[in-house]
C-alpha cells in the first residue's frame, strides 16, 4: 500500500501540475465572462516558448534556465492571449470561435517558427529541464514525507500554491469580487463603476499567463522538446477540469489532480497482479470513464458564470 502510494502520488502530481496551472487560467477567464476554449493553444504557445528559450539561453543561465524559461513563457502566453481578448472583448467576436482560432494559430505559429528557426519540425531536447527533488524538511516527515515530498517536481507544489493564491484572490480580495461580478452581471458591475472591459482583459490575460506557464511546465518536466505533438489534448483536459471543478480554483485543482491520479492508477494498475488479466484497453479508458462516472454520480449539475460567452455591449440589456 505504502509503496503503491509512493509511486502513484508523485506521478499523479507531475501529470497534474500543468493541468492545474492551465485550468486556473481558464477559471480566471471564464469567471470574468470570457469562455476560453483556447487553453490548448495557450499551452502550445507556452511549451514552444519554454523550449525555445531554454535551448537558446541554457548556456548563459545554467541551472536557472528552466525557471527563467517558464517566466518568459508565462509572459509570452499573457501577450499572446491578448489576441483572444481583443477579438472577444473589444471586437465582440463569438468567444468560442476566437478560442478555436487561438488553438489553430498557436500550433501553426509554433511549428512554423520551429521550422523557420531550426530548419526542422521539432527542436532538440533541452539540456536544462526541471528535475525532481526532495522538498527540504517536509520530506523527512514520516510516512507523509516519502509519499508527498520525495522525488517531486517543485513546479507541482507551485501549482498547488498558485491554486490557493487564485482562490484567495478570487474570493477574498476586491479584485476577485469585481472579476466575478463582471462575469455574472457585467452591467451591474458597470453601474457600480467597474470597468468591465478592463476586468475582462485582465481575466483573459491571466489565463494566457497561466496557460503559458502550464504549457512550459509540461514541456520542461515531461517532453523536453517542442513539436506539433508536444501538446495533444492537455488544454482540453484543462478545460474539462475547469468545468469539472465548477469554475472554482480549488475545484479545478481537485479535478486536475483527479485526472493525474486516474492516469497514474491506470499505469500502475497494469502491474498489479489482480488486474494483470484485465485487457489493457480497459485500463486505458478507465481514467475517462471514471471522469464521466464521477460527473454523473456525484458532481452533477454545474452552472457556468452567467454572463460567460456574452460580449458586453454598454447599454444593452
Amino acid at each position, binding site marked *: 500500500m505504502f509503496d503503491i502510494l509512493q509511486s502513484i502520488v508523485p506521478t499523479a502530481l507531475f501529470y497534474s501540475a500543468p493541468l492545474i496551472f492551465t485550468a486556473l487560467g481558464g477559471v480566471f477567464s471564464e469567471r470574468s465572462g470570457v469562455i476560453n476554449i483556447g487553453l490548448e493553444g495557450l499551452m502550445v504557445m507556452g511549451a514552444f516558448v519554454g523550449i525555445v528559450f531554454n535551448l537558446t539561453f541554457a548556456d548563459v543561465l545554467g541551472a536557472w534556465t528552466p525557471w527563467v524559461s517558464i517566466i518568459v513563457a508565462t509572459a509570452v502566453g499573457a501577450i499572446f492571449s491578448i489576441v483572444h481578448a481583443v477579438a472577444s472583448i473589444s471586437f465582440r467576436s463569438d468567444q468560442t470561435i476566437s478560442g478555436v482560432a487561438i488553438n489553430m494559430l498557436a500550433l501553426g505559429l509554433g511549428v512554423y517558427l520551429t521550422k523557420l528557426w531550426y530548419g526542422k519540425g521539432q527542436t532538440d531536447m533541452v539540456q536544462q529541464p526541471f528535475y525532481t527533488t526532495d522538498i527540504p524538511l517536509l520530506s523527512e516527515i514520516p510516512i507523509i514525507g516519502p509519499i508527498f515530498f520525495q522525488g517531486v517536481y517543485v513546479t507541482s507544489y507551485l501549482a498547488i500554491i498558485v491554486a490557493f493564491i487564485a482562490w484567495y484572490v478570487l474570493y477574498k480580495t*476586491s479584485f476577485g*469580487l469585481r472579476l466575478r461580478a463582471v462575469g455574472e452581471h457585467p452591467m451591474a458591475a458597470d*453601474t457600480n463603476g467597474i470597468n468591465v472591459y478592463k476586468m475582462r482583459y485582465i481575466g483573459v490575460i491571466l489565463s494566457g499567463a497561466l496557460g503559458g506557464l502550464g504549457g512550459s511546465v509540461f514541456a520542461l518536466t515531461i517532453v523536453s522538446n517542442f513539436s506539433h505533438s508536444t501538446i495533444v489534448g492537455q488544454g482540453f483536459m484543462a478545460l474539462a477540469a475547469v468545468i469539472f471543478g465548477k469554475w472554482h480554483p480549488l475545484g479545478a485543482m481537485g479535478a486536475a489532480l483527479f485526472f493525474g491520479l486516474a492516469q497514474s492508477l491506470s499505469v500502475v494498475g497494469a502491474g498489479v497482479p489482480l488486474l494483470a488479466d484485465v485487457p489493457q484497453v480497459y485500463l486505458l479508458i478507465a481514467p475517462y470513464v471514471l471522469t464521466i462516472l464521477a460527473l454523473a454520480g456525484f458532481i452533477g449539475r454545474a452552472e457556468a458564470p452567467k454572463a460567460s460567452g456574452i460580449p458586453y455591449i454598454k447599454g444593452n440589456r
Partner: protein
Amino acid sequence: MEYVIEMLNIRKEFPGIVANDDITIQLRKGEIHALLGENGAGKSTLMNVLFGLYQPEKGEIRVNGTKKNITSPNKANELGIGMVHQHFMLVEPFTVTQNIVLGKEPRKKTGAIDINKARKEIQELSDRYGLRVDPDAKISEISVGMQQRVEILKTLYRGAEVLIFDEPTAVLTPQEIKELVEILKSLTREGKSIILITHKLKEIMEVCDTCTIIRKGKGIGTVNVAETNPIELASLMVGREVNFKTEKKAAEPKENVLEIENLYVKDSRKIDLVKGLDLNIRSGEIVGIAGVDGNGQSELIEAITGLRKAKSGSIKLKNKNITNLSPRKITESGVGHIPEDRHRFGLVLDYSIGENIVLQTYYKKPYSKVKILNYKEIYNKAEQLIKEYDVRTPSVYTKARALSGGNQQKAIIGREVDRSPDLLIAAQPTRGLDVGAIEFIHKKLIEERDKGKAVLLVSFELDEILNVSDRIAVMFDGKIVAIVKPEETNEQELGMLMAGSKVSGIGEANGK
C-alpha cells in the same frame, strides 16, 4: 441655482428611432419628481442618459448649476447621482454586503476586503434610512423588496444626493410599496432629491411634488402635483381620455371549470409552499388571487400548468384530472397561461413575433403538416393578431427582443386568448405597463369571461384585483384563507387578510 439637476433639451437617438426628442427636466433639492409616460415613451432612456449609460446627441446636463459631461456611471456616481434600475443590477450569487460595496470595497492591509467594516457601514446607513436588509444573505435568497433596498443602499453607500428610481413599484407588493414610500420620504427628509418613474398615478399623487410628462419621446411639460389630478395626468400622457374604472357587467358563472383539492407543492428548495390548497373557478367568472409575494402563488400556477410537479392533491379541469400531466397535455386540455415572467417563460426572445405566436400550436394544423412548418400560415396568423391586439412592431418578422415590454405582453395575451382556452391564467398581466395598455388588457380578460371562460388572475395590485375580479381568493401561507366579493371588501380588509389575520365575519373559507 435652486436646481440640483437640470437636463436641458436632451435628444437621444437609436438606430431608426428618436427615443428622446428635446426633453427638459429640472429637479429641485429635496423634492420627489415624477417622470410619467407610456411604455416606450423614453423615460428609461432619459434617465440612462443622466446616469451616464448613454451619451445624448444634443442638449446639456447641469449638476448644481454647472454643466457636466456624464460619460459613465462612474462619473454619475462621483457627481452624487445614483440609480435604482427597473431590472435590478445585482449579482445574484453575491451577498447583500458584497453587492453594496462592489467597486468601492473597504480593504484590509493584506488586500483582502474588510467585510466587517463594510457590514458596519451598511448597518449605519440602513439604520439611518430605515432600510432593513440582511447583510449576509445571498441576493438569490431574499425578497424582491429587500433586493430593492439593497439597490437603494448601493447608491447611498456611494454618497448619492440624487436618486433615480425606474419603476420601483412595478415589482413590489402593496406592503412593500408602503415601506418604499416611507423610505422615499425619509430620503427627502435627509435632503436627498429623487426622480421617480412610475405608471401608477396614485403613487404620483401620494408622494411626488412635481411631475414631468413625456409622450413618444417628446417632453409635454411639468406640472405641480398639488394642482392636478390623475385624470388630467393620464390624458396628458396618452393624449386622449382614459377610463379608470373598468366597465363590466355582473358575472354569470356556470359550471365548475377548475377544481383544486388539498394541493401540496414544493418550491425549488424542496420546501412546501402550497399546503393543502382548495380552490374552484367556474365558467364565466374571474377569480382574483390576492396575496403577498412568496405565499405560494407562483408555485400554484406552475402546478396547474404542469411546469412544476404537485406533491399531492388533485387538480381537475372540467372534471378531468390534469394533476401532474405534462405542460403540453394541460395546454391541450384547454388551459391558457399568461406567465408572470414574460422574458423567461412567455417568449423566445430570439424568435420573431410570428414564431412566438405559435409557441404552443406550431405542431398543429394549419401551422404545420406532417411535422413541416407552414410559415405562410404562421405569419398570416401573426399579422391578424398584431392587428387585433394592437401590438406595435415594425413587422411580424421582428425579433420579440426588440419590442417594448408592453407590446411583448400584448403579443402574449393575443396568443393565449386566441387559443380560446377554457381556463385562462393571467399572472401579473399588467406589471410595468402604462395605463393605456392596462386598460386594454383588462378589457380582454373581461371579454373572455363574458364568452363563458374561466379566468384566474394573480396580481399584487389590489386595484387590479378589486377592479377586475368577480371573486377574490386571499392566499396566505400556501392556502386560500378567505373568499370575498370585491364589492363587499376594501383594500384595508384585504391587506389584513393577506397578512394572515382573520377578519370577523368572513373567517376561513375554502371556496366551495
